[in-house]
């Protein structure tokens, strides 16, 4: 009886829903899915018809921006699937991408503007209306601008498609103190490659036959398409060698893994050069025609033999020599992978210079399986002329602390020191958008110290991150599925450049607003409205004016791929360097009194009983931005201290014990995970735990904060944070 009833209902529902689905299909003119035809999904609900739509967007769970298709039922996102048409992401979404739905619907979302009421970081907030919040922010910015000049406000925007509007606002407002997240990440790598090749290439992993990865972990620190291409490559004929103090999942998949002594990568790279030059197995044509300073390099690397390197980095000399030969034999479809995050050592630019130079000896530039020239599809803009503020200081606040800092990125380390010291001039306001230096910048206490020097701090975010938690005013941002974003260009390496964008998948929830809306409203209140006299739609039209074909393609496929030559783009062209060649020897460095070729400096000995703390990634975690995600917490709910069992035994620590980890800058309590997947002198923990923000209700109370422990050394050339220079002691609690 009961059963028959059900059947009746479901037949009626079937008719109703299929009719509505058909209607949707005709409007969208695309393939709509008749889920009602099956026994699952919407058919379980009580006779309510589902309006199912599929919408293109781009993931925002990390920086990669993989293509996705959102399944939206009655205005609610039910599932995110990969968009197979976006060649950069190779038709995949990772665990974080799949958990994006939880980010959007997290009960911990910031819902309306909040004003700090208690002490900083105490967590007492008052709800404001948007008008109240924006009036207050504008008043503070006006006042601080008047007292401390417009440069008295430091702006920091993370990796986001709307960060450009925050930058635009900062410029219009009159501050040139704009920093990005990248000095906590990769600027030293970019510095080194730029200073060697004149630009930052992208590695053609897919077509490579031999890859050495020093310190990169592509199967956990996912980069599209490199991570996917790496698997395709090694399943064909590519050999993978991983050099890492940790047995990462990349090491687990590699043909060879060497647990290098931390901080000695340059010794390994110099020895590779030594063998290649000594045995004349480098690419003689390329070196002769396209490089500058080979004679100096030959002289320079004479002393860096594999036998010497073995003593430094603890990789057998014979293995180094063999790797050099194998690399050279596979060249030009071979590489020493440039990596991504290089915020590791005080000479991280020079380490990556060594990396860049080994690749130059292989002659893999502009070649399949080597380095590919990054291409951009040039987009239009709505230009503007910011006002000139006469009382502004002469230069950025983080200036003169590293000789070759990128002005476009700044240096978080230096800016923070400058704020604390009030030198060269005072900074009294901090404006952050979607960035969380409380978790990603080494030495959390110093970040707190900086924030305590401020008169006003404003954070725009979708969650109460630790950084937002410290702010005076917190403004709720729309998440990636709720907003329209500008067009952006990407490159799937061998598949060439493409254009992508975001259109809203659902309406913004609560009172959340896009960054553009927020800065436009602020600008209006500061009499700067003329610089934001456009809607996002108009901005996008200006961007895409010269590419009408792209608009069509993006509507149809969610992406526009431009056919273009990928290899051989430099044929007959000079390199964009001083010598117009690849700079093995850098005259610019010599002129700046920097080592013109990388000189190895032995890291300090790790005293017994101490450990070197290294930073790394898990495939389920994007630092602090995903650790509160309940779906992902089922994979990693807290971080653990990786400790070798032999080292643990000496300390009387058993697996799962709570331990106190101490460095010169901080202490944290964490559970120990005894594993042979790490060197005896090294320890590791994931980033993004040990949060201070009680607004992150899922992760609060879990694990330890690595930023609290990391010393804030810096790469002396680029100002990149150097996070692997920290020694810690560990004891059982």
């Amino acid at each position, binding site marked *: 009886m009961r*059963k028959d009833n059900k059947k009746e209902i479901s037949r009626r529902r079937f008719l109703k829903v299929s009719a509505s689905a058909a209607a949707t299909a005709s409007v969208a003119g695309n393939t709509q899915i008749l889920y009602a*035809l*099956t026994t699952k*999904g919407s058919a379980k609900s009580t006779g309510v018809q589902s309006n199912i739509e599929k919408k293109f967007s781009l993931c925002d769970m990390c920086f990669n921006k993989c293509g996705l298709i959102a399944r939206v039922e009655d205005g609610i996102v039910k599932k995110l699937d990969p968009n197979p048409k976006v060649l950069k992401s190779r038709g995949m979404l*990772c665990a974080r991408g799949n958990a994006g739905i939880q980010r959007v619907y997290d009960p911990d979302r910031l819902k309306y503007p909040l004003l700090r009421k208690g002490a900083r970081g105490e967590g007492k907030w008052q709800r404001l209306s948007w008008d109240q919040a924006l009036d207050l922010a504008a008043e503070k910015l006006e006042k601080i601008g008047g007292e401390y000049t417009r440069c008295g406000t430091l702006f920091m925007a993370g990796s986001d498609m709307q960060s450009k509007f925050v930058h635009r606002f900062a410029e219009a407002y009159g501050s040139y103190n704009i920093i990005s997240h990248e000095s906590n990440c990769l600027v030293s790598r970019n510095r080194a490659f730029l200073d060697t090749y004149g630009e930052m290439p992208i590695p053609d992993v897919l077509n490579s036959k031999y890859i050495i990865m020093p310190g990169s972990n592509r199967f*956990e620190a996912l980069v599209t398409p490199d991570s996917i291409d790496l698997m395709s490559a090694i399943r064909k004929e590519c050999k993978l060698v991983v050099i890492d103090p940790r047995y990462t*999942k990349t090491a687990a998949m590699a043909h060879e*893994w060497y647990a290098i002594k931390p901080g000695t990568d340059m010794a390994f790279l110099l020895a590779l050069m030594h063998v290649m030059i000594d045995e004349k197995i480098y690419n003689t044509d390329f070196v002769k025609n396209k490089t500058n300073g080979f004679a100096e390099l030959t002289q320079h690397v004479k002393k860096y033999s594999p036998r010497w390197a073995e003593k430094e980095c603890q990789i057998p000399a014979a293995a180094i020599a063999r790797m050099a030969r194998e690399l050279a034999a596979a060249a030009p479809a071979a590489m020493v992978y440039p990596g991504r995050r290089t915020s590791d050592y005080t000479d991280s630019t020079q380490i990556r210079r060594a990396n860049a130079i080994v690749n130059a000896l292989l002659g893999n530039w502009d070649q399949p399986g080597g380095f590919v020239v990054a291409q951009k599809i040039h987009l239009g803009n709505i230009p503007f002329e910011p006002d000139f503020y006469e009382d502004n200081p002469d230069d950025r606040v983080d200036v003169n602390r590293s000789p070759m800092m990128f002005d476009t990125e700044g240096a978080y380390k230096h800016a923070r020191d400058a704020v604390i010291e009030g030198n060269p001039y005072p900074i009294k306001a901090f404006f952050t958008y979607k960035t969380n230096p409380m978790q990603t910048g080494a030495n959390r206490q110093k970040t707190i110290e900086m924030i305590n020097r401020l008169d006003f701090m404003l954070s725009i975010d979708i969650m109460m991150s630790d950084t937002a938690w410290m702010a005076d005013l917190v403004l709720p941002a729309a998440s990636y599925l709720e907003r329209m974003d500008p067009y952006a260009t990407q490159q799937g390496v061998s598949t060439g450049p493409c254009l992508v964008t975001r259109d809203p998948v659902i309406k913004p929830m609560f009172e959340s607003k896009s960054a553009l809306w927020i800065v436009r409203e602020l600008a209006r209140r500061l009499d700067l409205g003329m610089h934001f006299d456009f809607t996002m739609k108009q901005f996008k039209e200006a961007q895409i004016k010269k590419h009408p074909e792209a608009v069509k393609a993006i509507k149809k496929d969610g992406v526009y791929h431009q056919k273009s030559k990928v290899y051989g783009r430099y044929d007959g062209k000079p390199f964009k360097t001083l010598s117009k060649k690849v700079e093995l020897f850098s005259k610019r460095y010599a002129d700046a009194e920097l080592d013109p070729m990388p000189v190895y400096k032995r890291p300090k000995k790790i005293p017994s009983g101490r450990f070197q703390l290294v930073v790394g990634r898990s495939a389920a975690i994007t630092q602090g931005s995903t650790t509160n995600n309940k779906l992902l917490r*089922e994979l990693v709910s807290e971080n653990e201290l990786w400790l070798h069992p032999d080292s643990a035994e000496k300390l009387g620590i058993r697996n799962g014990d709570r331990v106190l980890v101490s460095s010169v800058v901080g202490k944290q309590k964490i559970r120990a995970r005894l594993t042979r997947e790490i060197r005896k002198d090294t320890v590791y923990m994931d980033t993004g735990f040990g949060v201070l923000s009680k607004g992150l209700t899922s992760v609060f109370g879990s694990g330890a904060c690595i930023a609290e422990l990391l010393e804030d050394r810096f790469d002396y050339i680029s100002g990149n944070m150097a996070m692997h220079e920290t020694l810690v002691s560990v004891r059982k609690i």
Partner: protein
Amino acid sequence: MQKKYAIVIDTLNCIDCKACLIACKVENKVPEGFWRNWIKPNAIGNALKTQYQPGQCMQCDDPSCVAACPVDATFKGKGGLVVIDQEKCIGCGNCVTACPYEARYRHPEKSVVDKCDFCAHRLAAGEEPACVETCPTKTRILGNLNDPDSKVNQLLKRNEYVRITNPLINTQPNIYYKKETDLLHWPKEPTLPGGIHMSPQFWKTKT
């Protein structure tokens, strides 16, 4: 001809990123603490070469779970998929311990049993299962065994794949794994709840 779905898994492609776990969890609203699919490592901690083996309900042709169900709530359905009629299921849990692959769980709120059905609703809509589609390295390949030209049949022809079964009970699973990888001998012997062993004949649905 009726379709007969199978998945071929190239174990060596899996990087243990767990995209498939979260994709499945979202698609099928699997409750916190439970999973319809998994990734098994062949060694933890001190291995110098690790394999990760993904898996889920094997949609067996002679399913011991079906034999164990006292009310016929689970049966071989369309596409060769083992389905559960959750209206009929009494939640006794016989099928949970009967599965050699431990692919079933009792839903904590609904008190019925749940498991992977290769995303039958997606298949019906012409889509691949969530785990298959989202995988970065496309470790799982889904196809129709009744179509001689299907990708799975092309792969199986190469004779590089095997089924993994318990030596006592071959339930004739429809997931195939790369030969010469580890983790080919883990399926357990089916039991009834409480660890009660039955004669192999008890688990047979076919004579």
